[in-house]
């Protein structure tokens, strides 16, 4: 348990530091790299919670696919240098206000439910196994799954429609 705790705190420091680094870096490529590091740390968190499937999907989808596209676009457009944000603009204040709301909300829930949190118990041997996840997804959550897939399909068709050349 203690070794797990030590590991948790090291990972937590990396996660928070990479998130702060992402916010503070002036260069968009570095920001993207910090975000990738953050995603990777979250994946290791999942692994510590013995959810190997979610962890690897996190790496494949977020760190692998989505962030590669982000990086690709940043480099292709040459948009590395974002410049300094003005400290009075709405792009500066809105995130701070929203972040404060989220923090207060989270604190409220944690403090109110402090006693109600059940003691941790060891996960079952087939917890997070691909078969278990698949069955759960296709039996109990079939409708959300299908709705998500339709949503992605619509986005894909929209992108193709927008990118299509006029004459074809």
């Amino acid at each position, binding site marked *: 348990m203690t070794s797990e705790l030590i590991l948790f705190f090291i990972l937590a420091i990396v996660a928070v530091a990479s998130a702060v680094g992402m916010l503070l870096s002036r260069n968009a490529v570095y920001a993207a790299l910090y975000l990738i590091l953050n995603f990777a740390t979250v994946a290791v968190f999942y692994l510590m919670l013995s959810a190997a499937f979610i962890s690897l*999907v996190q790496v494949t989808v977020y760190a692998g696919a989505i962030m*590669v596209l982000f990086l690709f676009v940043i480099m292709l457009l040459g948009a590395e240098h974002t410049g300094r944000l003005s400290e009075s603009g709405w792009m500066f204040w809105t995130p701070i206000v929203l972040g404060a709301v989220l923090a207060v909300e989270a604190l409220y829930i944690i403090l109110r439910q402090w006693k109600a949190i059940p003691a941790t118990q060891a996960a079952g041997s087939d917890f997070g196994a691909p078969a278990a996840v698949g069955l759960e997804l296709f039996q109990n959550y079939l409708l959300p799954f299908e709705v998500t897939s339709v949503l992605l399909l619509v986005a894909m068709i929209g992108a193709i429609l927008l990118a299509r050349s006029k004459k074809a």
Partner: protein
Amino acid sequence: MDLALLLEWIIKSLVLILILLTSFAYLTFYERKALARIQVRIGPNRAGPGGWLQPVADAVKLIFKEELTPAKAYKVIFVIAPMLTLLPALIILAVVPFGSSITLFGRQVSLGITDINVGVLYIMAVASISVYGIVLAGWSSNNKYAMLGGIRSSAQMISYELALGLSIIGPILLAESMSIGEIIDAQRGIWFLFLQPVGAIIFWTATLAEVNRSPFDMPEAEQELTAGYHVEYSGMKFALFFIAEYMKMIAVSVILAALFLGGYRGPFVDQVPLLGPLYLFVKVFVLLFIMIWVRATLPRIRYDRLMAFGWKLLFPLALTNVFLTAVGIILADTYGPAFLWSIPLMSILAFLVVNYLARDRIATASAQAVSFRR
């Protein structure tokens, strides 16, 4: 945690890394010799008897070369990028068993680092992060040729990853497991190559693109990009890219052997477990020869053709193959296992149809090109 188990893992990881490093060195020798033979040359034959010390000479040369860092490069990333390229190549084989278990010093030792129940996903995850090293190398060099090489490679790898992932679904469906060990065990009777011929071809083509091997070595097209993403690298940093490329060749060959060729399985492997690694070695050796053979035979394809091929041919074909595999498995479940053979029949039919359509399309495309020229 059991200390002996920890020690066993560390020793096995070290052995795997050492094997990969040595086999990388001799893979370069193998490639140069085989290429030379195909091109009616002799190849390296000066260093040591028959040229067998050539890899050592190469290593010494690369270590003592001067290392340059461009003045306007992004230094930190410039240094990290080669390591990021090498890392996935080193860790990707951790989930592939190299044999069944043997008894060593009174301990049951399984040959292979670990066999997790999401092994295939692990391979996909590592493959998906392997593009970063190349992209970052291209960007941090602050050189337009390097940059173009990096962007090309990221576009290429994203495109071919789809077909790659879909081609792996075939073996997963047939073995009903994502663990590489169980997929290998499911091939006890028959290799998945025969049940999934189209899947194996798609996998092979997509991995050639993933590891930037000829004829898909666009990121390093010399005529267009001088050398591509590693043009500013020299000395040991360049060597790391070189090592990564050849290690990836080995890694994808091992994975293909595990998914479609029965991995370490062969005659008498249940009685003599030590035969397992040997069978795997032979299979990988043959697959590597095919890679070298392809390089010696096929010219590099044009970049727009490469993207069109990936998206318009390989991807739909892979989707069709997944669908047909599922249909075949349902047929086999309802009418008996003999119907499993409908999978190769249907998928080869689909392959031929796509092939015919593609030829038709390419013929009209080149006809159009000719008419434009007039």
